[in-house]
């Protein structure tokens, strides 16, 4: 059954929460086509101006330093990710598998630009951080996505422009639609929306709900295209791309570059560890569900092991960078 989140603008289906017991042919006929997604895009328009991020400014100023720091870190990761996907989508649009894919990908380009504007406007108008000044520049520069995943996504999408081959296109599709959007962005959006609701940041909640609805279309496209690729001879390249991307994805979810204090009081430490572990679990669950949806259940076990190894590696890196245990490990050791 789909998990539905309702707001005034409609429902936000989480595509990976749908049943995954069909055959590849059944899945192919059920997943939305590019033409379906184009029509959905026409119905689901929104604007940054209507969300009006500045209405959260007073509530933002009233937040405790910990909540501000955590939210700002999440918003910076999302903003940096959106800038990167806006810059790299062009090569996928230039070499689509079908003309309907091209039309759909053009709509996604508009979405990505709107997401960049939303996060930048929110950080500046609600959080009061000037992205052109030192604090803003440092915020973006320390985002783990910028340092680890963005260079890889840029390299892989550039290859599509160079050779225009379906192999390069499907490799880029996995890094872009299935890992960056289906695992990383979807996880960050879910946890950040939870915080926005809890902290009564109404504009952030509304904006993130809109972004999540858009991302649902993007991930739907990625799943459909990848499922087609699996049955049309590109199974191997799609599997390889997952293996290539998984370490960097696990790294970004842990975020070794960002300080994560371990509270001294055990019940607080347990809560913090549960929050962070929850995010890791959401990412893992989405990754494995996506594999089933695109018709690659045989990869689930090995990628699950790679995911766990990637998380361990990132936790080691955190410890080395900060000379302290990450809260997930500190809670286990307590």
């Amino acid at each position, binding site marked *: 059954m789909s998990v539905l989140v309702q707001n005034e603008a409609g429902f936000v289906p989480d595509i990976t929460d749908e049943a995954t017991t069909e055959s590849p042919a059944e899945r192919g006929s059920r997943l939305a086509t590019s033409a379906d997604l184009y029509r959905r895009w026409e119905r689901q328009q929104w604007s940054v101006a209507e969300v009006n991020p500045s209405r959260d400014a007073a509530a933002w100023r009233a937040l405790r330093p910990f909540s501000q720091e955590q939210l700002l870190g999440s918003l910076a990761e999302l903003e940096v990710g959106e800038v990167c996907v806006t810059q790299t989508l062009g090569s996928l649009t230039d070499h689509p598998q079908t003309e309907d894919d091209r039309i759909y990908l053009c709509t996604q380009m508009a979405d990505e630009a709107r997401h960049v504007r939303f996060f930048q406007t929110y950080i500046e108008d609600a959080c009061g951080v000037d992205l052109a000044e030192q604090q803003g520049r440092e915020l973006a520069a320390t985002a783990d996505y910028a340092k680890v995943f963005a260079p890889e996504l840029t390299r892989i999408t550039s290859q599509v422009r160079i050779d225009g081959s379906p192999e390069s296109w499907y490799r880029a599709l996995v890094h872009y639609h299935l890992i960056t959007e289906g695992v990383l962005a979807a996880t960050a959006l879910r946890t950040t929306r939870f915080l926005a609701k809890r902290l009564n940041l109404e504009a952030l909640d509304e904006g993130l709900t809109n972004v999540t609805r858009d991302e649902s279309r993007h991930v739907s496209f990625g799943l459909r295209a990848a499922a087609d690729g699996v049955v049309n001879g590109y199974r191997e390249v799609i599997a390889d791309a997952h293996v290539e991307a998984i370490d960097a994805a696990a790294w970004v979810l842990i975020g070794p570059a960002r300080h994560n204090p371990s509270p*001294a009081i*055990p019940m607080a430490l347990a809560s913090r560890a549960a929050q962070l572990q929850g995010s890791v679990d959401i990412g893992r669950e989405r990754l494995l569900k996506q594999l089933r949806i695109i018709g690659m259940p045989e990869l689930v076990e090995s990628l699950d092991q790679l995911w766990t190894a990637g998380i361990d590696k990132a936790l080691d890196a955190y410890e080395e960078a900060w000379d302290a245990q990450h809260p997930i490990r500190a809670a286990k050791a307590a």
Partner: protein
Amino acid sequence: MSETLRNDVRRLIGEMSPLGSRTAQPTDRLVEDLGYDSLAVIELSLQLESQFSLKPMSQDDATAITTVGDIEELVVSSSTEAAAEIG
């Protein structure tokens, strides 16, 4: 010293209540009476650490924190241990 410390801790817990700043009593329950949830407990812990120099504790130190008085006790014993280590 200990009573002053307890008062300071209690005042901070009351000020940081998610239900809005209020006067807390030692018998108030953090969750049921003062509205603390997981995020608020993390914020409280970090604030206590910065104001009272708490050292990390093991699970044995705090198996059943339910009330404001439990937190007061935790901070007092942590600061007593820290003072003993310095002394």
